[in-house]
């Protein structure tokens, strides 16, 4: 298992070396592009601050993701269950997604305050949409013959839902969750821009105002690592628990 990551790690190291070499070779000024070593050094010196930012942003992301996933699942299941409900509410969902989340940012802060919950709300809002769509689609595509079979065993709606529709939709829900966790991270970082004192989004803003290039790149790198780690986590969950593909 470990050996499979060797090429990826080698590629990453290669990229860092290339970065370092290009910046040095072309004598790029530090305020345009710092060297890779300067960025890594900044991660070292700012470790405590960045660590606190990571903890906060990660918490916002995971809380928002969890809430968004649950809300999305509930709405997706409800839409799959009732076409009428879908017809009434789904256009509102589309409309809400057509408005960029930034436009809601200020509103969310005014409602939920400057603390963690406004970021959680934005992360949840971004996660919920793909989960809703894929839950509904996954449950709609359930094999009618398998539904008939369960009914012939005397199964009621609830049993068909949990024993058939949910597992049938899970691969499709899982795909949405992978997208949703990335969106959740974006939501958390963007949410912090509307005002807070800790978090990776705040570190980005501070680095921008102070024109601290190494710090800016340090935070960008850290955001990337978190994004990859969260995605890898979802992949691992999928491989372990949602490995099947619906047979039709």
């Amino acid at each position: 298992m470990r050996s499979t990551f060797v090429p990826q790690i080698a590629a990453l190291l290669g990229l860092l070396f290339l970065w370092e070499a290009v910046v040095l070779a072309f004598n790029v000024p530090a305020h345009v592009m710092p060297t890779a070593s300067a960025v890594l050094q900044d991660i070292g010196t700012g470790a405590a601050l960045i660590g606190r930012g990571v903890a906060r942003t990660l918490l916002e992301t995971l809380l928002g993701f969890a809430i968004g996933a649950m809300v999305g699942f509930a709405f997706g299941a409800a839409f799959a269950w009732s076409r009428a409900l879908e017809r009434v509410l789904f256009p509102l969902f589309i409309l809400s997604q057509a408005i960029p989340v930034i436009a809601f940012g200020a509103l969310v802060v005014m409602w939920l305050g400057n603390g963690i919950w406004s970021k959680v709300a934005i992360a949840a809002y971004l996660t919920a949409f793909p989960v809703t769509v894929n839950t509904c689609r996954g449950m709609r595509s359930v094999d009618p013959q398998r539904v008939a079979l369960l009914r012939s065993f005397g199964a009621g709606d609830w049993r068909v839902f949990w024993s058939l529709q949910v597992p049938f939709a899970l691969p499709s829900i899982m795909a949405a969750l992978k997208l949703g966790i990335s969106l959740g991270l974006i939501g958390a970082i963007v949410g912090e821009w509307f005002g807070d004192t800790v978090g990776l989004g705040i570190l980005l803003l501070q680095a921008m105002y102070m024109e601290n290039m190494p710090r800016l790149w340090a935070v960008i790198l850290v955001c990337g690592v978190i994004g990859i780690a969260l995605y890898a986590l979802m992949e691992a969950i999928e491989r372990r628990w949602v490995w099947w593909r619906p047979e039709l």
Partner: protein
Amino acid sequence: MMAGGAMPGRTIPQPVEAVPETAPPIVELANVSKTFGQGRQEVSALEHIRLAIGRGEFVTVVGPSGCGKSTLFNILAGLTEADPGASIRYGGQPRAAKELLGKVAFMPQRDLLLPWRRVVDNAILPLQVEGMSRAEALKRAAPMFPEFGLAGFEKHYPHQLSGGMRQRVALMRTFLFERDLTLLDEPFGALDALTRSLMQRWLLEVWQRHQRTILFITHDVDEAIFLGDRVVVMTARPGRIKLVLDVKLPRPRDAEIVTSPEFIQIKRQVLAAIEEESLKSFQQATGG
């Protein structure tokens, strides 16, 4: 009284009493019709089906494609309502089709195993639907694995099994769902000839040991005669019962029986009836 949809004006060998008068049939259908669609698109799938099946009987149904066999099964499984005016008596009680949900063990053509459940969990699914705990259901299922040729495969997933094994899992699931009537819809249709013949003999053994009542759909005339106490021949659309033949071949039946004169004699009658029907449906299809 064992009744087999007699059509007026045709010479039809009347079925002989297969069960004593005192034991009422498990299921008794009279005037069961089913029409799909409305107006000009109206299609009559079943017409005036009259059929009774006694306890412990093995009845096979053959007929050309599109003769409504599967519609008949869906009605008996409770999944489709018959047209108004139908009479369905199950266990002596008049029933609407939907009241049969959960009362008849139904095995569709495809195995329909759930890919996320292990073999054992697929097999006990109907027991869990009934409300039995998993532990209890597992205890009930455990001794059946060797009998169904699945010993050692309990923990496998369906995609790891061959088609024949998947079919046996589906059969085991159906047999674990102990009901007065078991409906098998072409369970061996997708299997190769050798596996199929093995499975037929095996099914007869299981049927005798478990003393189930089976209604079995097939396209294969040999299979219908080899397995059945009675063979029901259905007509092309609209599906009616054209012929009901008693198969008085001794049991247990072995593979050679298909070459015996008695077998050939029955087969000739069934084939003649089917031939007539296939021709009719072919003419319908070609507008001739």
